[in-house]
């Protein structure tokens, strides 16, 4: 069986004062993740405090954009697509989609790499992953 990932129309992300820098980088196809400078650990999703210490000693840093599928599901809608947690090489497990692939061939542990997919109305593109 083969089910190709559907090219969904992606809703524009809601941009707020705190996440603005992340999405401005996304517009330039730069994928950033949070770094807690207290502990040296990376985190995702980006935010204005460290989820490890609650301090605001955090910054956005570039991620390699590679990782493996930690878990996933194929939403069997009229627009079949794979929602997944990808475990980045930097550590965090992040919610994303696995795109440009046969959804029936996906498995946990599969290496994946970053791709950008346009969202609607000229909003910043969305970070997604495809088999590496």
């Amino acid at each position: 069986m083969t089910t190709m990932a559907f090219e969904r129309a992606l809703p524009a992300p809601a941009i707020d004062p705190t996440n603005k820098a992340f999405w401005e980088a996304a517009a330039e196809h730069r994928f950033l993740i949070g770094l807690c400078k207290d502990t040296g650990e990376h985190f995702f999703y980006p935010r204005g405090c460290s989820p490890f210490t609650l301090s605001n000693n955090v910054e956005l840093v570039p991620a390699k954009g590679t990782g493996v599928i930690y878990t996933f599901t194929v939403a069997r809608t009229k627009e079949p697509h794979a929602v997944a947690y990808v475990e980045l090489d930097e550590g965090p497990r992040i919610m994303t989609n696995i795109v440009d692939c046969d959804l029936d061939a996906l498995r946990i542990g599969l290496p994946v790499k970053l791709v950008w997919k346009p969202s609607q109305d000229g909003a910043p593109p969305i970070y997604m992953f495809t088999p590496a």
Partner: protein
Amino acid sequence: MSINGKAYIVGAYEHPTRKAEHQSVAQLHAEVAYGALQDAGLSKDDIDGYFCAGDAPGLGMLNMADYMGLNNLSHVDSTDTGGSSYQIHVAHAAEAIAMGKCNVALITLAGRPRSEAMATGTAPRSWGVNVPDDPFEIPMGRTVATAYAMSAMRHMYEYGTTSEQLAWIKVAASHHAQHNEHAMLRKVVTVEDVVNSPLVADPLHRLDCCVISDGGGALIVTRPEIAKSLKRPLVKVRGTGEAVKHQAGGTIDVTYSGARASGARAFAMAGCTPADIKYASIYDSFTITVLIQLEDLGFCEKGQGGKFVSDGNLISGVGKLPFNTDGGGLCNNHPANRGGMTKVIEAVRQARGEAHPAVQVKNADLVLAHGTGGLLSIRHGSGTVILERE
């Protein structure tokens, strides 16, 4: 201070409707409140504590207190952890009663997602504005179904859990639902029926999912002296626990739930163990929800849930742990997309000996009701309540 024995559930009422075309959400709240008061043998003006969650319209307690004419409120609480809110409301009501802040607490839940034709499980939903995670999750297609399916997929990978094992949970629920005249799905199904139903979100099939229904339910919680003055069987709140689990910055393990913490807290307060529980209401938004919670509550070892639920082990009169004898959310009712209330109500029925005779557990003197609200693999609230029939 422990609240073990400081409060009793004296009123419990489940609305019989599953499609409320002619009632507003506020009216449903009022109807279940009245039903629970009638069940308890109390009246409106006895209520001095009111508990509701996000299913209550507007500012919840304010609009509903006005609508229902609650004039004597000295304590209110709108804790909202989604579908598990009502387990936590029982706990908070018992705490408020123990502290002398109120004497008779009303808890209500109602909604009409079926009449509103809401795409409950398969359309991305936000729970408000300025939600910090939404921009990173809504574009990804975060839905209820995909969120629970991702836990199921990883659980299968780590522990070898199978779709057939998950199907046994639906099979057990359907065996119970056949006796419930109000249940949406009364047909007994087989493992084959479940695994042959269409995939919704791999590995979950259509029959792994709960129903979408209108309706509601209500509870009355009160202090021991008042409970003992009423004519209903005495159902004591013996232990409660609550917990929140989330992505933790990206370090999440999706194979377990907050039940691990909330259950441990409830059992510690109650001074008993899972082996002592005669009946369990286990939140069943999906089959996987039940399996993971059973493990986390300690009814079996982690990873052994698949074996535990197989071969009818959850069917009343057949297995070792009768669960959701009303048919649960999988077959009976999931009002307002929030199944915690009906879990407590069926646990109270069992403790009272008032469940349907075909599914009533003999001597169900110690029962448990557990809820998971929100999204299992993303962020959720867990509430556990242990009740004892005196």
